[in-house]
């Protein structure tokens, strides 16, 4: 993974977020407080804004810096969670030698672990983790199986989609929707949706290149 790729991905993510304003906003209006889109938009913009600063850094340092920037930009529940993800992913990347799918999958898993620790949530609680955990597991599996890049990307897109859709039938036990009880059923979790969108757009970017 190169820093230039990270920057590419960041811009791609920003475009995806912007293109999904209505979706993200209405999901968080339905079972949250309506700010998830604007939070994600603010975060994405902040990263694109520090492009030149990031460009000179190593990928590990860039990911860490992205985490720190998100931490001081997004706020809300998604801020510290996404920040923890990128900071931990950066740290994990640093501690692994070489360049391989497995290395990235391991770093991704470290990022997801950081979210679990920070938010004290797990699978099935109707949060972004319902996308991130299956994606991380699938990523590790495919990488261990030495699958090629295209196969991995397609697999993760599919897993993310399934995880995102699965949140629809869940009762939330973490985050703002937890207050809703049964009433949350039928709504997709906004954080799960934005994670699915981000993963998909990065995978598509790789598939196209």
């Amino acid at each position, binding site marked *: 993974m190169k820093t230039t790729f990270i920057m590419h991905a960041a811009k791609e993510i920003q475009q995806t977020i912007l293109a999904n304003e209505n979706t993200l906003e209405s999901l968080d209006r339905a079972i949250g407080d*309506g700010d998830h889109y*604007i*939070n994600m938009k603010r975060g994405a913009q902040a990263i694109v804004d520090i492009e030149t600063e990031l460009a000179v850094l190593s990928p590990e340092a860039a990911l860490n810096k992205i985490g720190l920037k998100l931490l001081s930009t997004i*706020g*809300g529940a998604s*801020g510290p*969670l996404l920040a923890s993800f990128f900071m931990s992913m950066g740290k994990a990347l640093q501690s692994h030698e070489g360049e391989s799918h497995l290395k990235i999958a391991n770093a991704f898993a470290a990022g997801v672990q950081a979210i679990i620790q920070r*938010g004290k949530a797990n699978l099935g609680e109707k949060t972004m983790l319902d996308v991130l955990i299956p994606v991380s597991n699938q990523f590790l599996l495919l990488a261990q199986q030495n699958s090629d890049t295209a196969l991995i990307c397609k697999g993760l897109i599919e897993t993310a989609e399934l995880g995102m859709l699965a949140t629809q039938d869940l009762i939330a036990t973490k985050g*703002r929707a*937890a207050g809703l009880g049964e009433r949350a059923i039928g709504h997709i979790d906004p954080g799960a949706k934005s994670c699915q969108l981000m993963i998909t757009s990065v995978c598509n970017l790789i598939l196209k290149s």
Partner: protein
Amino acid sequence: MKKFINHIDDILVESLSGFSTAHADLVSLHLDPAYIVRKNKAANKVVIISGGGSGHEPLHAGYIGYGMLDAACPGHVFTSPTPDQMLAAAEAAHANQGVLFIVKNYAGDVMNFEMAAEMLAFENATVYTSDDCAVVNSTYTTGRRGVAGTVIVEKCVGSLAETGANLNACKALGDKVNQRISSIGVALTSCTVPAASRPTFDISDTEIEMGVGIHGEPGRRREVMREADAIITDCVDAILADFKVKNLTLGENNEALLLINGFGATPLMELYLIYNVAAKLFKQHGINIARSLVGNYTTALDMAGASVTLCLLDDEIKQHWDSPVHTAALRWGC
């Protein structure tokens, strides 16, 4: 959506600037990161810092001043502030006795304050407020939401800190007061988050949202609109049931503080009518309303609706509630 704003991105800074100019005798504003810090405080005291998403004004900046908060970190509208704000506020306010954060119990607020607390060089502790009894089944949730009762916690802890009490004592009082508070809210209309530019939820002219949160989060259930007596009876019953769950025994001479809080668009006339109903009902249950507060103290932007908060008093809490306070939104005794 019609609001008095210029550009959506500037609302917060312009509003904070107005606040700190209007109350320049009490506070000063710092930007990047944004925090508001108290002027004129003792050199040695536990500093009390709160914060949270904006849109709940006067919470929290309106409670900065003698006898209450030392600093507040305002997030974007309904979005918790970020750790850098809390760290900078703590640095600016620190008075050699450690920092107590008062945090409303929401995932976002908890995690951001938690990260700040982990990074902070000073001794610190956190009180989480969780007075909202709207959500009955507690297995659904990591913890209840902090709502208007937060004002009472901030007032009492702020009063104690002013006496020179140490961090542990302040934290203990905050936890105790929080434990003795129960709140529940009702919305008649939704609020409109400026950046979203449309109401958070749709609600018809014959419905109310019972147990609504202060961000317009849906509550217990959608109910049919009824007369005030019926609505407030349900609120009072929910609070009494919660007191039972909390094992707060209600004897003959229980003294309590009754706070009727407007969410932003409810006329004071209606809030006093609600007070009238609630006070009578509580009295019927042997609760003596010894202290009262009626007004917009923890709002949800332009939501029409109100919440009922009851805080069971004891001598210590009463003393700290009554002690002098001088902030933009709460002032007495000086």
